[in-house]
């Protein structure tokens, strides 16, 4: 029973991180109709920016996290301007290929600057919490709380503020949004910035648990794409549910079946779901 709760806390922390990264991706897909393959690159940059700010400026962890989030948000907005905006009318395959190029570029640059080896970020609150025999590290708890907080904040932003409503409107209908006077260019940039910030926050949160490496973006990329296909591309609740489903499948599958194949289990689940429901769990029709 203790082991079960232990795994549960692991799965929740992992799911929270997956959800933050997947939310950004699904928002961008909803608004721009672009599968942003560079998203994993933004996630990876978030981790490296946190690492660099922590070591370079010696500021507290939370400040480093915020600086990284802002920096990646700006970069994502710039990316939208330079790459995705000019390609908005081109075939989708073009935007996908360009995004892959951007991902390669990020990875190569990071490898040049920081090297290919793993980097460690110290846990801001070291130590563990023992609740009735269930051991949970403070960092995992922090990840769970912060990701829930970020999701609630995003939900408030999308549902209760005018700017957030424009994002929702645009994902429903680009033309309709333009007709009622929404500046679709500004919303596009904003969505990219939000997705970048979410990815950076997720990376900064998980970085003390896993280590930081240039290839971390590629792996995360595949997982979050699996998640948003699972949840239905562009669907916000779908991304959250998909993220926790994948995290649970990985943690429990890895624990009870075979740790080596934990990654395969996630993708196998995706293949299975798509074989039965090609449009994902949360989207009607195609």
């Amino acid at each position, binding site marked *: 029973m203790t082991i079960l709760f232990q795994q549960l806390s692991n799965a929740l922390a992992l799911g929270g991180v997956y959800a933050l990264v997947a939310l950004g991706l699904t928002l961008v*897909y909803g608004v721009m109709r672009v*599968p942003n393959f560079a998203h994993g690159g933004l996630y990876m940059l978030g981790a490296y920016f946190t690492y660099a700010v922590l070591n370079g400026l010696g500021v507290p962890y939370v400040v480093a996290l915020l600086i990284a989030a802002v920096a990646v948000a700006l970069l994502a907005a710039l990316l939208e301007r330079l*790459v995705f905006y*000019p*390609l908005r009318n*081109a*075939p*989708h*395959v*073009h*935007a*996908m*290929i*360009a995004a*892959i*190029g*951007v*991902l*390669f*570029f*990020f*990875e*190569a*640059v990071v490898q*040049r600057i920081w090297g290919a080896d793993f980097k460690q970020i110290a846990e801001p609150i070291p130590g563990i919490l023992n609740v009735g025999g269930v051991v949970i590290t403070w960092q995992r708890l922090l990840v769970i709380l912060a990701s829930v907080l970020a999701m609630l904040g995003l939900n408030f932003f999308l549902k209760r503020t005018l700017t957030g409503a424009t994002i929702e409107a645009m994902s429903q209908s680009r033309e309709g949004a333009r007709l009622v006077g929404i500046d679709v260019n500004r919303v596009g940039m904003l969505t990219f910035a939000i997705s970048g910030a979410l990815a950076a926050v997720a990376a900064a949160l998980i970085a003390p648990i896993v280590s930081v490496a240039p290839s971390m973006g*590629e792996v995360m990329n*595949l997982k979050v*794409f*699996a998640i948003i*296909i699972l949840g239905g*591309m562009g669907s916000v609740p779908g991304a959250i549910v998909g993220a926790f489903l994948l995290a649970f499948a990985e943690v429990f599958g890895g624990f009870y079946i075979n740790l*080596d*194949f934990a*990654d*395969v289990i996630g*993708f*196998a689940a*995706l*293949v299975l779901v*798509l*074989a039965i429901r*090609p449009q994902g769990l949360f989207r009607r029709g*195609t």
Partner: protein
Amino acid sequence: MTRPAFKPGPLVWVALFVLAALLPLLQPGGFVLDVAINVMIWSMLAYGLNVMLGYTGQLPLAHAGFFGIGAYAVGILTLREGWNFWLAWPAAVALCALGGLLLGLVAFRTRGDAFSIFTLGVGVIIALVINKWDDLTGGNDGLNGVPPASSLLGIDFSKSANFYYVALAALALTVLVVARTRQSVFGRSLVAIRGGEDLARSAGIDVFSHKLRALMLSTAIAGLAGGVYAAYVGFLGSAVTGPTTTFTVLLYLLVGGVGTLAGPLLGTGLIYVALQFMKGLQDYQYIVFGPLLVLLVLFAPQGLAGLWNRAQMRRASARTERAVDHA
């Protein structure tokens, strides 16, 4: 008016392959042959990708996985089971075609972006399974000592200069099959699907079965290339079966020109040879490749073949204008 499209006629292709066949007679160094064989292997993979992306308009991202399946099938069958290379190779191609069929049955339930992402997931699964299945594939250590191609008709193909002809023949076969396919009714139907699935369906084309057959052809070609790779390199590691390889070949294809017959060979040859002369640049490879991909889709999405076409068309229209002026 001149023919605007960049389509070297059959004669140009025959001349090219005859010239290529004469290359070993010049007794070039091992380096030249090595580069030539590598270019042929990777351009075959690019041809396979082109059948899907260029003709059918779908971007599958599992091709390195099928390349890997072909390569490992040849490797395992010849090394572990003691099969003759000339038996193992067709078996590997058949296996890849079958794999393509199975993938397509599921993957074509999705379309567009979801199809690409789905196949990317499958590509990752293939690479992971190859990496983790120690008993079959040697896992992380890879498969060492795949025997070179055995003799056939009294020719010893274990020598690099002779094996060159195996690769050349495989490439020639690939180009021929792709060219014939493109010309056939089947190929035209594929192009119609690229133009619009719903429209193609309304014209009476069985979209699903056409896409399925295109994918099978495409993965079979990937397996063909993989088989040559296995016998040539002699060592198989799981890294080559991952998405990075797919993306690199995608770059070759884009540089050459998507949807053209010359594009895959042109792009692979150019980039691969250029890289050989910039060994110092290899660490920076992706710092250059990444932005290059972006710039290509932004400014020259049709690649070199497309640029050539545009130049031809401009010249042709200038000529017509001049003719009109003189009239």
